């Protein structure tokens, strides 16, 4: 049973560029959440997708956008990259409407984004 997968593993971009990160959820999961983890910090919630729509959003600017596809996989897009966007981007998947204890969020290995 494949867990959460993310691609690419590492990425280097320059300021002002745009980036797309990808996530495939754990088999059977229908909900994808994205988090940003800066160095020395805990993960910070960006947004969550369910049924191809953004269901919740954290305190991130509109430069951060996402998409969920019919197969539940998801993309995170960041426009007009800033130096401060350098971080580990984590994707987590879960099952909405599942029994208590089955809706835990499971994380992928992350994509390390460096903005120069």
């Amino acid at each position, binding site marked *: 049973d494949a867990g959460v997968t993310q691609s690419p593993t590492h990425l280097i971009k320059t300021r002002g560029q745009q980036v797309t990160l990808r996530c495939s959820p754990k088999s059977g999961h229908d909900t994808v959440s994205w988090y940003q983890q800066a160095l020395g910090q*805990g993960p910070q919630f960006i947004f969550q997708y369910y049924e191809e729509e953004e269901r919740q959003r954290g305190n991130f600017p509109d430069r951060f956008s996402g998409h969920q596809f019919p197969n539940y996989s998801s993309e995170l897009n960041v426009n007009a990259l800033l130096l401060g966007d350098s971080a580990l981007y984590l994707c987590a998947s879960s099952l909405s409407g599942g029994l208590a204890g089955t809706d835990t*969020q499971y994380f992928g290995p992350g994509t390390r984004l460096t903005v120069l």
Partner: protein
Amino acid sequence: DQQVKQNSPSLSVQEGRISILNCDYTNSMFDYFLWYKKYPAEGPTFLISISSIKDKNEDGRFTVFLNKSAKHLSLHIVPSQPGDSAVYFCAANALGGANSKLTFGKGITLSVRP
């Protein structure tokens, strides 16, 4: 404004002894709490969780205690093993389940000495 606080950045314990990792929160709306473990170059791995209707949850060597009046929870690892050396994150959410937005602390680096 840190709603989940892990005030000790690191902890070192001897193999076989107990590890106690602490976490405080400020948001009274939080009603579900989780602990994740993270190794370098890997994503966080779910360890154990507790609902606010309980004050203790146990899973093997891991036990989480919740003190709602103090807005404090702790993770106990007994006995500690060298493979437990990792960064441990405390996380919390509201709305009665683990599915909604998680708010994380900064993490505690645990080192278990052989």
